[in-house]
């Protein structure tokens, strides 16, 4: 039995399915409570129903984009784990980065079904869970106090400057992260088989370029052609096209 077939065993589906089912029940519970509370405080039920229908229609397109992410990761991690991660807590760009770093940490050459082992898989699954759980942890310990503090009247001036750079710092951190990986692809091409031999694989760089071009087209459509809805597919769509290009370009290696 291949490793991917093992990772797709019904028992693994069941483990992930139970967690997803629990989260679905939590969502229904919160929804019913919010609706009842809205009615109790005299909110217009038509408005609440509009919020539900508009959110349902809004969520369909991004959900299909997220499904493409499950497909993208299923070749290296099987289907159940990406299904769980992208249904609960995760997001496509987080999960792929953490899975790649985790694969590296367990000694795999990269996130790939070819090199995956059962031990590497369970270690990657644990790292994915622990690395991206902090939002939930902070919610448990700080939500009540934080929201209370926000709703209380402010003393003195705000801290707009610090928040302003906080946003810039987040972007800069992602730029640093992306640069480290792209730099590694360039380094592998130039010196992967010996200093300045230029005999390493050029496929990852070609994939980066194709994904960048497709993303540029998505952004152009969203910004210049007023097709904001395409943004829902921008990351997953760029990835799928670039991965298809890898299949085509791989024939030339």
């Amino acid at each position, binding site marked *: 039995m291949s490793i991917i077939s093992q990772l797709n065993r019904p028992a693994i589906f069941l483990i992930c399915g139970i967690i997803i089912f629990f989260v679905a029940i939590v969502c229904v519970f919160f*929804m019913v409570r919010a609706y009842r509370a809205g009615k109790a405080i005299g909110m217009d039920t038509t408005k609440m129903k509009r919020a539900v229908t508009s959110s349902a229609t809004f969520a369909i397109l991004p959900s299909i984009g997220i499904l493409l992410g499950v497909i993208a990761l299923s070749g290296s991690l099987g289907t159940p784990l990406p299904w769980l991660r992208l249904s609960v807590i995760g997001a496509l760009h987080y999960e792929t980065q953490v899975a790649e770093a985790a694969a590296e940490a367990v000694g795999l050459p990269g996130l790939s079904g070819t090199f995956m082992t059962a031990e590497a898989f369970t270690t990657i699954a644990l790292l994915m869970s622990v690395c991206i759980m902090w939002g939930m942890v902070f919610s448990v310990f700080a939500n009540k106090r934080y929201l209370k503090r926000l709703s209380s009247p402010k003393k003195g001036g705000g801290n707009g400057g610090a928040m302003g750079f906080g946003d810039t710092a987040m972007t800069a951190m992602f730029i640093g992260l992306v640069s480290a990986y792209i730099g590694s692809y360039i380094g592998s091409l130039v010196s992967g088989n010996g200093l300045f031999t230029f005999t390493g694989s050029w496929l990852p760089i070609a994939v980066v370029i194709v994904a960048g071009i497709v993303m540029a087209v998505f952004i152009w459509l969203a910004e210049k052609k007023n097709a904001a809805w395409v943004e829902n597919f921008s990351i997953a769509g760029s990835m799928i096209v670039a991965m298809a290009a890898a299949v085509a370009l791989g024939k030339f290696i």
Partner: protein
Amino acid sequence: MNEQEKNLQFEKYNNRTHFYGRLASIITLVMLIAAPFVMGAVLGAMPNMAAFGKGFLAIGIVWFVSCIAEYLIYTPMLGAGGGYLAFITGNLINMKIPCAVNARDIVGAKSGTPENEIISTLSIATASLVTILVLAVGVVLLIPLQPVLQTPALQPAFDNVVPALFGAMAYKYYRKNMKTAIWPLLVMSVLFILVPSLTGSTSFMIIPSGAIAIGIAYMRYRKNQKGAQ
């Protein structure tokens, strides 16, 4: 119902929301951390804790900082119920935040009001359920496709998931920040060319690369602030 009764009713609802939110978050956390070990029992291979520690030091710290920033920024937008649900279900930037803001705009709820709290919770719960449903249907449809997805011809696609992601993200982040991006990209490329063995520790290199990017971004931010004054 007068304003005082309404506030009292809402306060009661909100206090229970914190209780249920905490409970749901703790149960989800326990299940998420236990799942790899249960999968390990099924597959006959438990997680390698040494590799886990190494991986956590490399990548966990970066995401810890990112999670703090996300928590501080998004919680005030989502309120109590919406916040707990959004952090449990994820996909904040690409779905939950725009979805909640959209619902709030359609309904005309104002920030910080009980109405906003209710609408935000309804919106995020609905969006999460739609995602769970779409993914469940998609995964069922994917099962018969597994033999096709595992053919050797498609392996280059799955071996290049990460470059595909970073290519897309690079364009998104670089295009408006080229002056910040050029330096970490240049420094990292030169480092990886001169010390090719570093490719095995790329995730560690995120730290110096991120530090360079943040340092340059800060200098440019200060310069812009002074220019504005």
